[in-house]
């Protein structure tokens, strides 16, 4: 644990680029899949990758260099250690579960669609239009 902290403190720029870059890359890749892929399952994969990127962003902005996880281990109650921001983590916890719920629902819709329309191509799902 300590290793991370000191190392992160020293190389915060690289970390920033790496973490933010990854997060943005995930969002963008997910978005691309949603917008370009025709298979419904791929689209749902895209959505979940996009969500993952956003979750990473949340955790990243909550990080404080040199901070520890916001858990008071025995004996360290009063030690004035820096702790990372607990709020984004709590939010992400909620967001992950909600994201899973949405994914499950989406997939069940995909199964239903395949049963009824016999296709998993989003372009063929246009019986409702105009």
């Amino acid at each position, binding site marked *: 644990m300590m290793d991370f902290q000191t190392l992160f403190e020293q190389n915060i720029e690289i970390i*920033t680029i790496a973490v933010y*870059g990854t997060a943005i890359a995930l969002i963008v890749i997910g978005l691309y899949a949603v917008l370009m892929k025709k298979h419904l399952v791929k689209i749902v994969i895209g959505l979940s990758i996009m969500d993952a990127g956003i979750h990473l962003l949340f955790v990243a902005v909550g990080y404080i260099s040199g*901070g520890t996880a*916001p858990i008071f281990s025995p004996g360290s109650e009063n030690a004035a250690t820096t702790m990372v921001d607990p709020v984004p983590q709590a939010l992400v916890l909620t967001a992950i579960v*909600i994201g899973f719920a949405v994914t499950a629902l989406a997939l069940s819709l995909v199964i239903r669609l395949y049963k009824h329309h016999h296709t998993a191509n989003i372009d063929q799902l246009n019986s409702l239009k105009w």
Partner: protein
Amino acid sequence: MLKKLIVFLLIATLGYTLAVTLSSIPIGKNRIGSIENPETVAAYYLDKSPNDLKVANTITAVVVNFRGFDTLGEVSVLFLAATGLASILYRKEEEEEEENIRHISHRLNLPSSSLVQTGAKILFPLIIVLGIYVFIHGHLTPGGGFQGGAIIATGFLLMLVSYKGFETNHKVMVWLESLAGLGFVGVGVFGLVKYGSFLQNTGWTGNLNDLISGGLIPLIYIFVGIKVATELTNILDILLNIKPRKK
């Protein structure tokens, strides 16, 4: 092709904008201010969690107590997702009878050798115990209701996948599901009735880092754990029991 170009341009612009925006929100910067004189909610939580609530894991304190209402909402999202899933994949009884395949399980047929089955049999109780441990210790160590619930669900997943004949006891599941949800709300209502604020913790909180500490927080997390476990198992159960299409 034109669409591809447009999409590339769009996502490039979006990525660029995000990057520019995030560049002024550097990682690692302390934004939460001093804990002694809290300006931000985070600092306040870090102050109150060990001192007032006696909860070692601040995230648990935030999730269950400070923002407990969100968690209630989240649990209901899961519940609604399970309901919605059941409603979407619900199959009319006539339909089933018509196809005359009513009592046959249409479980995912992964090749499950006896080795896998025995392994699953051994692992299953361990996984359940692990899950229960995780959500009971949610206020002390990393983890909690969601994690524990999800772990238990994976245990059931293992059984469902490896044993053809394995069925969750629906009656027990329904009761557990409902009672856990009602328990969570009930704890909230208890706070409302006794202290005038929904989900309010009791005054008695015990000592930091004790197993029984933090007032009602562990209790809530247990309910959350059971609720999440049952909901996730439900979802998996429904999905796994979809009848495969006639080939």
